C-alpha cells in the first residue's frame, strides 16, 4: 500500500508537468484548430530562461543589491520567466503561424516543427553542448507519512501546477479576454466581425500557453535539475498526446489526460520492467483512442473538419 501511495505521489508530480504543457497545446488548438509543435521546445526555453533569471537574482542578492530570501527568489523566478517566455510564444506565433493562418494546417505543423528545431539549435549554439543545472533555491525537506515520502518540492510542484490550472480556468471563464478566446473557439468567422481583435487574442493565447510551459519547465528544473536542449522534444510530444487524449481544445480534458499519462507511465514502470514503459503506456492510449476516437471531452469526428 505504501508503495502504491508513494507512486501515486510521484505520478502526481510527473503528471503535473504533462498537464501544464498540454494546456498550452489545448488552448492554441481550441482557437486555431492546430497544434503548436514548437510548444515542447518553448517548455525547454522556459526552463533555460528560468535558470538565467534565478542566477541573475542570486547574483543580485549575493552582491547585496537585493535582500530577499531564497523562496522569494523562486517565486520571482517563476513569475519573471513566465512573463519573458510568453514573449517567446508570441514571437513564434508572429513568425511561424500568423503568415500561415489560411494555409493548410499541415504546413503550419511543419513550421512549428522547424521553429522547434531552430530553438533547440539556437540554444545549443548560444550555450554550447554542456548541461546546465538549475540552482537549488530551496532545501529539500522530506516528510515521512506512514512510509510514504513526501518532499516539499513535490508538494510545491503539484500545488503550483494545480494553482496555475485553476487560475487559467478563472481567466477564461471570468475575464473579457477569456471570453474573447471562448468566443473565437466557438466561431472563428463571425467573432472577428464583432470587433474582437483576432491577432491580439491569438497572441495572448500563445503567450499564456508559453507562460504555463515556462512554469512547467522551472518546476521540472526544480525536480530534475539537469537541463539539456533536447529535453523539450519527448516531453512536448507526450504532452501533445495528452492534449489530444483529453479531447482537443478542452482545458479540463488536457489537465486530466496529463495526469493520467503521468499515472500510466509511473505505474507501468512500477509493475513491469521500466524499459516496457513506453510500450505499455502507448498501447493503453491506442486502446483508449480505439474506443473513444475523439478523446475524453472532444466532439465526435465529423467529415467537415477544417483542413
Amino acid at each position, binding site marked *: 500500500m505504501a508503495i502504491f501511495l508513494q507512486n501515486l505521489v510521484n505520478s502526481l508530480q510527473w503528471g503535473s508537468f504533462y498537464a501544464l504543457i498540454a494546456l498550452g497545446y489545448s488552448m492554441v488548438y481550441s482557437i486555431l484548430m492546430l497544434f503548436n509543435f514548437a510548444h515542447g521546445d518553448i517548455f525547454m526555453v522556459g526552463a533555460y530562461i528560468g535558470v538565467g533569471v534565478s542566477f541573475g537574482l542570486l547574483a543580485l542578492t549575493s552582491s547585496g543589491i537585493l535582500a530577499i530570501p531564497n523562496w522569494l527568489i523562486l517565486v520571482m523566478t517563476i513569475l519573471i520567466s513566465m512573463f519573458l517566455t510568453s514573449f517567446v510564444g508570441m514571437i513564434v506565433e508572429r513568425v511561424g503561424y500568423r503568415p*500561415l493562418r489560411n494555409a*493548410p494546417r499541415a504546413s503550419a*505543423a511543419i513550421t512549428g516543427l522547424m521553429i522547434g528545431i*531552430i530553438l*533547440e539549435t539556437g540554444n545549443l*549554439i548560444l550555450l554550447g553542448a554542456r548541461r546546465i543545472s538549475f540552482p537549488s533555491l530551496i532545501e529539500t525537506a522530506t516528510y515521512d507519512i506512514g512510509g510514504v515520502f513526501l518532499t516539499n518540492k513535490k508538494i510545491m510542484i503539484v500545488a503550483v501546477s494545480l494553482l496555475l490550472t485553476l487560475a487559467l480556468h478563472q481567466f477564461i471563464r471570468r475575464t473579457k479576454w477569456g471570453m474573447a478566446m471562448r468566443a473565437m473557439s466557438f466561431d472563428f468567422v463571425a467573432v472577428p466581425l464583432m470587433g474582437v481583435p483576432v491577432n491580439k487574442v491569438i497572441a495572448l493565447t500563445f503567450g499564456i500557453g508559453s507562460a504555463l510551459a515556462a512554469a512547467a519547465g522551472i518546476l521540472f528544473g526544480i525536480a530534475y535539475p539537469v537541463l539539456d536542449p533536447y529535453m523539450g522534444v519527448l516531453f512536448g510530444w507526450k504532452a501533445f498526446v495528452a492534449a489530444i*487524449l483529453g479531447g482537443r481544445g478542452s482545458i479540463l480534458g488536457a489537465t486530466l489526460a496529463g495526469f493520467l499519462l503521468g499515472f500510466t507511465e509511473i505505474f507501468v514502470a512500477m509493475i513491469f520492467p521500466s524499459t516496457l514503459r*513506453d510500450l505499455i503506456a502507448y498501447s493503453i492510449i491506442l486502446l483508449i483512442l480505439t474506443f473513444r476516437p*475523439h478523446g475524453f471531452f472532444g466532439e465526435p469526428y465529423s*467529415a467537415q473538419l477544417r483542413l
Partner: protein
Amino acid sequence: MPDTMPKTGKLRAAFSRVPLLGWLLGILAAVVIEKYLGTDLALGVGLPKIPALFGIDIMLKKPLLVPNAFLYTLLIYALPVGVVGVATAPLANRAAAALIRLPITVPVIVHLALFYVSMHLWAEVSDYRALVLRLTLIAVMLTLSLNVINGYMGEFSCSHPGFMALGAYCASVVTVGLFVDKGMFGIDLLPEGMGPFLFPVALLAGGVLAAVGALVVAVPSFRTRGDYLAIISLAFLFIVKSVIENLEFVRGPRGMSGQPDWAGLPTVFLWTVLCVWTINNYVRSTLGKAMNAIRDNELAADAMTVDTRRTKMVGFLFAAFWAGVAGGLFAHVLRYVNPGTFGIQQLAEVLAMVYFGGLNSVYGSIVGAVSISMLGEALRPLEIFKWIIIPLLLILVMIYRPTGLVAFKDLDAESLLRPKQGPDGGA
C-alpha cells in the same frame, strides 16, 4: 527568327529545344569529363581535390576558394551540360522521336540507363558520393511513400519511421540470421553466393511486415482522422521503437550491425525506380483518385460509391510497404541500425521532405527528398548552423508556397520524354 531578338532570348530558345535525352547526354559528358580530367582541372584551378558535392562544401570550409570552386563547377558541369545539350539537340530530338514511337517501356529504360550510367560514373569519384547518392535515393522512396498518406490521402501520419524500422529490422534479421550470424536462428549459414538472390526476398519480407504493422494505423482511420489519427500513428511509432528496444533477439537498444554489403548503388537505384514506378501508377489509378476524393470530402466520396475503407486500407498498406523496403535498404547501406535512428528526428526529416517538395505530387517528393538530403550533406561544414538554415528555408517555403514547391503535379513519362519542338516548328 528576327535578328533583333536579345541574346538571352536566343539562348533560352536554344535550351528549350533540348529534350530530356539531350540533357542526359550532357550530364553523361560532364561526368565523363570529370572522371578523366577532374583531378587535373581541380588542381589547375587551385583546389586540393575534386569537390565532392558541386564545390559547396569547399566554398563553406574555405571562403577564399569560392571563385575557384565556382569556376570548377562551371567548367566541369554547367559548360559541358549546356554545350553538349544544345549541340546534340537535333540528334537527340530525332532519337527521342524514334524512341517514343516504341512501347513506352523502351524509351523509359533507355533514359533510365543513361541516367544510371552518369550517376554511377559520378559516384565512382569518391565513396562519400556513393553513400550520399544511395541515402538520397532511399530518401526519395521514403518521401514518396509518405506522400501517399499525407499528400494524396490527406492524413497526417507520424508513423513512417516506425514502418521504416519494421522493414529495416525484418530485412536485417533475415540477412544477418541466414548469412552472417549462426547463432541467431541456430541453423547453418547459407552460402554467400545465394545472398544477392535472397536480398530482394528479405526486403520484401520487411515491406510486408511494415504493411502488417500499418494495420494498427489503418483500422482506426476508418473511424477517425486528422489529429486523432496523427496521435494513433505517433503512438504506433513510440510502440514500435519500444518493442525493438525490448527485443533481446535483435540486441535491443544496442542496435544490430553486420548486415552484408548488398545494397550497392545499382540495387538501390533499381528499387527506387520500382518504387517510383509503382507509386506513380498507383496514384494515377482509380484507387489513387479515390484517395484524393476521400481527402477532399469523405462524405461526398462515400456517396459517390467510393469504397472508403478499402481505399484507406490499400493506401496505408501500400505506403507502409514501400517505407519498409526503404528501411531494409537503409539498414543495408549503413550496415548498422539501432532503434534510436527511427525516432522523432527521422520523422521531422521525412515530413520536411514531403512538405518542402510538394504534396500530392511524385515530382515534388523527388525534388523534396533530393534537395533536403543533398542540402543536408552540402551544408555539413557549417556544422550546427545547418540546423538553423534548413529549418529557416522550410519555414520560408511554407509561408510563400504552403503546399510545397511542386505540388499537385502528375508525373507522366510520355510527356516528359517527348522530343521538344523548336519555336520554328522543326523537331
